[in-house]
């Protein structure tokens, strides 16, 4: 599974240049059992077994559900699942009774006993909020017919944290926003989005750091509006953000062309010839190359392989490719060699 291309990245030739992927996460808990934070190991194991049995019954017969309890996964496997956005950082740290159920095509994953008993997730490339919601909703509806959910008529689906109560739905879209980032517009965007009950956070970085100018926009509120209303509002704000990104990219080209082309050119040069490359530098420079592709600056680079490369340079995927655990410096050496080879192949093609 880990050697396959990441399914939530837009395919080669797809016109989704700014919106990278759409995700829906539904938080659910089973009735009459403590939430994971107060449950015993035995209760958590029982929930994992029940969830696995229920999920196996609804996955298509042609594909086999992959069930993993966290202690059975190596550190590398956990890292790979994290990099492919199939599990959260919190689940990575959990032990017995916590696990993940995966559909082999990776569009659906169910975390078991993370903060809630079940966290059903669906991921699709591009901006397709309603389609990805249908995927997650279908799994949720079928699971709820086998597993009794904790639900209250007034408050909706009951969750460990009150910030998720109600629909339990976190809808999010991943966007590539170098235009807004390079013109200092991300902070105003964050403030404006928050006024509308949305959060904007950088991906691929620690805390609030935004590496590679990839951002995730997601809803904050889960109570007081329906799933359809939330998706409609999120769709609308994403359209506005995409419009703004295009405008500010045009502004960059119009007003800072030489500086911009110099940044992109230097990024290409560094990636093409560096012998030591940290993950952060690789991501930031690949982001500039993606922008260069979008602006039509490169005749021989294609967006699809560059986006895939951004996953392959992550520590877990890199060590999987190397076939062994690598310390920091050998990892940076291996990363630089991988990038030189991939870009060299594209240049020669």
């Amino acid at each position, binding site marked *: 599974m880990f050697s396959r291309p990441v399914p939530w990245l837009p395919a080669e030739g797809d*016109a989704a240049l700014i919106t990278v992927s759409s995700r829906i996460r539904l938080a659910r808990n089973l*009735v009459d059992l*403590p*939430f994971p*934070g*107060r449950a015993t190991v035995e209760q958590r194991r029982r929930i994992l077994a029940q969830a696995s049995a229920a999920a196996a019954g609804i996955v298509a017969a042609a594909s086999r559900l992959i069930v993993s309890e966290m202690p059975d996964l190596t550190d590398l496997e956990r890292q790979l699942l994290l990099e492919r956005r199939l599990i959260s950082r919190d689940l990575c740290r959990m032990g017995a009774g916590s696990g993940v159920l995966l559909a082999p095509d990776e569009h659906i994953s169910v975390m078991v006993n993370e*903060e809630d008993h079940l966290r059903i997730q669906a991921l699709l490339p*591009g*901006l*397709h*909020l*309603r389609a990805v*919601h*249908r995927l997650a*909703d279908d799994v949720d*509806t079928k699971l709820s017919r086998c597993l*009794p959910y*904790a*639900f*209250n*008529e*007034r*408050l909706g*689906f009951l969750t460990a*944290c*009150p910030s998720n109560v*109600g*629909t339990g*739905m976190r809808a999010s879209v991943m966007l590539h926003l170098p235009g807004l980032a390079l013109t200092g517009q991300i902070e*105003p965007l964050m403030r*404006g*989005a*928050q*006024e509308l009950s949305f959060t904007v956070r950088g991906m691929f970085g620690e805390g609030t750091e935004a590496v590679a100018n990839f951002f995730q926009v997601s809803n*904050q*509120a889960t*109570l*007081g*509006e*329906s*799933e*359809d209303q939330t998706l*409609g*509002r999120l*769709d*609308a*704000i994403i*359209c*506005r953000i*995409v*419009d703004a990104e*295009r*405008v*500010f990219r*045009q*502004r960059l*080209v119009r007003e800072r062309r030489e500086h911009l082309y110099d940044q992109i050119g230097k990024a290409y040069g560094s990636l093409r010839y560096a012998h030591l490359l940290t993950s952060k530098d690789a991501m930031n420079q690949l982001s500039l190359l993606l922008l260069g592709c979008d*602006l*039509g*600056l490169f005749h021989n680079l294609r967006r699809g392989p560059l986006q895939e490369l951004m996953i392959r340079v992550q520590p877990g995927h890199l060590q999987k490719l190397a076939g062994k655990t690598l310390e920091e410096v050998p990892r940076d050496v291996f990363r630089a060699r991988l990038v030189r080879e991939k870009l060299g192949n594209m240049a020669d093609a």
Partner: protein
Amino acid sequence: MICEECHKHEASVHIQEIIGKKRLSLNLCAACASAKGVDAEKGLQGINLAALLLDLAKSKATVKPAETCPAPPAANRRCTGCGLTEADFRKHGRFGCAACYDVFTDLLTSLLHDIHRGDAHTGKKPGTAAAVAADGPSAPDLHLLTADLDRAVAAEAYERAAELRDAIRRLTASRRKARYPRHSHAATGGTGLEPPPGP
């Protein structure tokens, strides 16, 4: 400015949180901030935001809860389902089971009002699919138009780019109108950005 928790020492940690349309702020001295789990260097990472918000809502009294709160219950009350205490919830910001929602209703009222867009569930119920409209046929058209726009700008074909821009705006507006026939203004709420004048 004096710390709003101890009222003794100078406040050196200033927290602001925008929840919906409300701006809540809290000013703490280093010791009280540390006691609440705020690391001055790491900021709000790892902080129990739910408990902080609960304190903010109660101390500021600028938020009117939707329902009248009952008389303050006993401080040592405990959930009969999982044994969680009020102190546990304030520390970790998490309930222990479904029954906690009944036991600690008073703690929830202002919190839900500040975080969410209402105090009642209007979404799907277990066992039934959510009522969500399907994607319209314009979604793929929009992607193709925007790709054409990028190519036109890169080629400096600004007249063509302006035509495409106008076509995209018409398509986007018609999609919004179809989804929000009476509330198109609310649906297009500002992003807080000030784009420059067009070419």
